[in-house]
């Protein structure tokens, strides 16, 4: 079933290794980095929104107390 005779055969890609792995490499990089960036952005956004909400709440209680 497996098309390749050896692992080095697989890596060489019949002489097209640079092109094939260059394509798959960037694809892998994008599909790993994009979700990480999105998740990190989500964390910072949630933290910032919470800070803003707390600040608004504090301002509100101060106003009602006065």
């Amino acid at each position: 079933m497996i098309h390749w005779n050896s692992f080095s055969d697989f890596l060489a890609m019949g002489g097209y290794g640079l092109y094939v792995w260059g394509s798959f490499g960037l694809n892998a990089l994008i599909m790993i980095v994009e979700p990480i960036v999105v998740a990190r952005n989500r964390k910072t956004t949630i933290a910032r929104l919470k800070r803003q909400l707390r600040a608004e709440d504090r301002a509100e209680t101060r106003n009602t107390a006065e």
Partner: protein
Amino acid sequence: MKDRFNLYRFASPATFYPLAGKLIPWFVALSVVFGLAGLYLGMLVAPTDFQQGEGYRIIFIHVPASWMSMFIYLVMAGWAAIGLAFNTRLSGMMAQALAPTGALMAFLSLWTGALWGKPMWGAWWVWDARLTSELILLFLYIGYMALTAAIDDQRRADKAGGLLLLVGVVNVPIIYFSVKWWNTLHQGSSVNLTKSSMAETMLWGMLLMALCFWMYSIAVALMRVRTIMLERERHTDWVRAELGANSSGAAK
């Protein structure tokens, strides 16, 4: 009437937000499964191409990425049309969530195309109809993101971006049919509904990879849209409750 009501219910961010959160792990899992199956068939089992040797294996990401770059654009244009017609809040958020992934897909399509073109045509790039129109698609994505980011008023940003998306949609059939309409260096389509010029394992490998790209794009767009929802709806009660509910600081 009941169906209509339900549809509107899911168009509301407060209902869509938790639903999207539940769906994301499933799309991630499906993407991984389809991706592993597609890589197995495409990279380990599929035979050598009689013309292009092993170099043709770039097809397993080039074609799915190109399909997604066009399809994501169509979906964004669809959301833009809905947003402009019905003034729904969700549509602008969806378009904004999809744009970066669409742009990455267009870039990946061009990148893999260059790496494929060099050994097969002897050139990284040619000003061929297919390549040029795909490059324009990348510029449309970048233009949409820059335009919406430059306008402070969110509703106006969505409207302007939506118009750009609708005008630019003319480019998608141009990309798709370019290999038929013009004499291009780019090869014609390897797959169509009636017959395919590819070996069966090649075809299945490619379709599985396409499914992997679909699931990936949906998952990452849903992740992004949830953050956009929190940001844009920050003054509503449901976001207040959502942020209060996971005050541990963990991004759920």
